[in-house]
């Protein structure tokens, strides 16, 4: 077993007496790409936010790179769901990608040539260098997501958490993004993705986490991502069996 990058230890979370996550233990290993899979309301985003320290668990703790999250913030890049963004905001593609440099700067420190070079490199990596001056709303859904991926790359983090990055994204961009993320794992980076297209999960992830308020199971995709486990995760949601069927058919 390779080195652990995120260690989730017995997390419990409830909102107004409603249980959201229950007794979650996870050891996320470095150099892998994880799919976090489960039905709506399974607590996937909540788990992310807890790892990021945005939500305080009722009990349990999270260790990131062997430390408290507070101390390693700049090593964790987060790409949240896109729905809360004001697309009319006066921000250019470049401005947004450059945000990835902010955690590396002290309050009075200015951004310098080096930051500029890293920003430029991130833009080129996702193929958005020609759009640097474009306002963020004047892009297609796929291009917008590339910008947020570039921001995460620009942060030069060790851990990347992406919440449903493929929603509203064209297939070309989806392939491009997944290639970039897979490449990251070669440099011992850790990638976790909230995902809900079961049909593509085999191709995308070498490890999966099946979650539905409690941890169903997690591990190597080949071993863990079985029809039985998926059925358990989506228990009582019959429509999903249709998707499972599609996936079996493909194999």
């Amino acid at each position, binding site marked *: 077993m390779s080195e652990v990058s995120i260690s989730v230890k017995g997390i419990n979370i409830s909102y107004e007496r409603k249980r959201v996550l229950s007794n979650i233990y996870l050891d996320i290993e470095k150099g892998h790409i994880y799919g976090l899979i489960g039905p709506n309301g399974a607590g996937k985003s909540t788990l992310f936010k807890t790892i*990021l*320290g*945005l939500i305080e668990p009722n009990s349990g703790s999270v260790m990131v790179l062997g430390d408290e999250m*507070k101390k390693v*913030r*700049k090593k*964790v890049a*987060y790409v*949240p769901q896109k729905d*809360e*963004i*004001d697309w*009319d*905001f*006066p*921000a*250019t593609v470049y*401005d*947004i990608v450059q*945000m990835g440099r*902010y*955690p590396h*700067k002290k*309050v*009075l420190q200015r951004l310098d040539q080096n930051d500029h070079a890293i920003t430029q490199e991130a833009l080129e990596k996702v193929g958005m260098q020609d759009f640097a001056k474009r*306002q963020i709303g004047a892009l297609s859904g796929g291009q917008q997501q590339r910008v947020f991926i570039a921001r995460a790359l620009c942060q030069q983090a060790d851990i990347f958490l992406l919440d449903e990055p493929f929603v509203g994204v064209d297939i070309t961009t989806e392939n491009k993004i997944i290639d970039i993320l897979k490449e990251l794992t070669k440099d011992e980076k850790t990638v976790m993705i909230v995902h809900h297209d079961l049909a593509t999960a085999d191709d995308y992830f070498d490890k999966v986490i099946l979650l539905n308020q409690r941890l169903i199971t997690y591990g190597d995709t080949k071993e863990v991502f079985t029809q039985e486990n998926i059925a358990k995760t989506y228990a009582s949601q019959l429509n999903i069996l249709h998707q499972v069927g599609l996936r079996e058919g493909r194999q």
Partner: protein
Amino acid sequence: MLELFDILSEEWAIRALIASSLVGILCGVLGCFLVLRNMSLIGDALSHAILPGVFVPFMIIGYSKAGFFIGTLTAAIISAVAITWIQNNVKTKNDAAIGIVFTLMFAIGVTGISYLNNAQGVHLDLKDFLFGSTLGISNEDIVITSIVTFYALASVIIFYRYLFITTFQATIAATMGISVQFVHYFLMLLVSLAIVASLQTVGIILVVAMLITPASTALLLSNNLKSVLVISGVIGLLSAVIGLIGAIVLNTPPGPAMCITATLFYAFSVVFSPTKGIVVKFRNRRHQKALIQREDILKLMYKSETSISKDTIANRLQYNLSILSSRLAELIQSGDISKSINGYVITAKGRDLGQKLVRAHRLWEKYLVDEMGLKDDQIHEDAENLEHILDHEMIDTLDEKLGYPDKDPHGAPIPQRLERSRTPLLGLKPKGRALISKEQISEKVESELFELGLSALMPIQLNDIQESTITVDTANGIINIDVDLARKISVDKA
């Protein structure tokens, strides 16, 4: 005019001008963040809520500008904290919480000042605080306003990154360890300072106009936050100065005059903003409509394949003759069609475009029937619209997805994909200049260029588009190029 100049050189007027300018810039800059954070109402609330800060210090230490400053700032901070406390701890809607707090503070202020005036014969004119006054500005006020302006602008510059990221995406800011709550309160403090500084010049009722109107104007004019802040500051400055002069001339309170001026700037940019204005939108829509008409003409000519008369086109497409004449002239200009003896004939360039439109139309119809399960009598309208929107890349994707079909649902043949460059030589207008690109789509194209004597970065001018060849002017003289090759040659802008 001379008279106005005399007035403006008087000391009180100069003081008023300086104070108004500072306030205009300050409110303009800070207002951008309020507007972007959907907090305009908070600006209005805080301005009304500072009124008790006038009479309470007055009762304790008498008439003192420093007293007013500290009192009003305290009132603003108390209100901001009270609003946030109610929002977080009581089951009252957010905007209702704002309304409850600021109206109470305002009521206390009005009651207090009126009571002081009536009962004890003090001269504190409520109207001056509500709408501003030009006469009441002292040197002390100017010192305070200058310090506040300098402090607030310096803060915006130094903490720009923090203000930007918390305003754009608070979640991301939080994961980077930035305290969103702290930045919020800090901004509230800056806004309170701006409001307190505006008390004398604009007055509390209309200061919100100085906060949100220049900011909204600037947001219509630029897509870059830094320039939005600068533009908003400049418009704030102009509104304050022009408004103040207007108020002096008309002998009216300055606050309303500034508000009206700022709104005039706003109205002007609503209409004339180069990217978001009504005029531009109207023009774009007209261009779009003309484009669709031109494309429909090309499609018709592509299908008819022979020379076609103007009347026939007008009949088939139901265009009136004057519109049709303009469209045809534009098409000749762009080299898509040319005049023939008995009407018009499509050129090789126009045929490419017509082919693309027909291909898009028929593939989309096929897609609607095969993938969306629509009946073949429901699909024409939709394809009529989509054919103008789909680009080459999307059409190719569609073709691939459908498995390269030969015929559309009505049995008409779907034109095959033509191998073409993204920026083809064939796409130039007659007399259009360009450079042969360094990168061509294939080595075959490169060797054919070589044979023709065309090298990379060589400047060329498109001379004429004929039936199956085009002619190009180069330094080596005129060269004829086959249309099939011209479509594959990539060119760059000269």
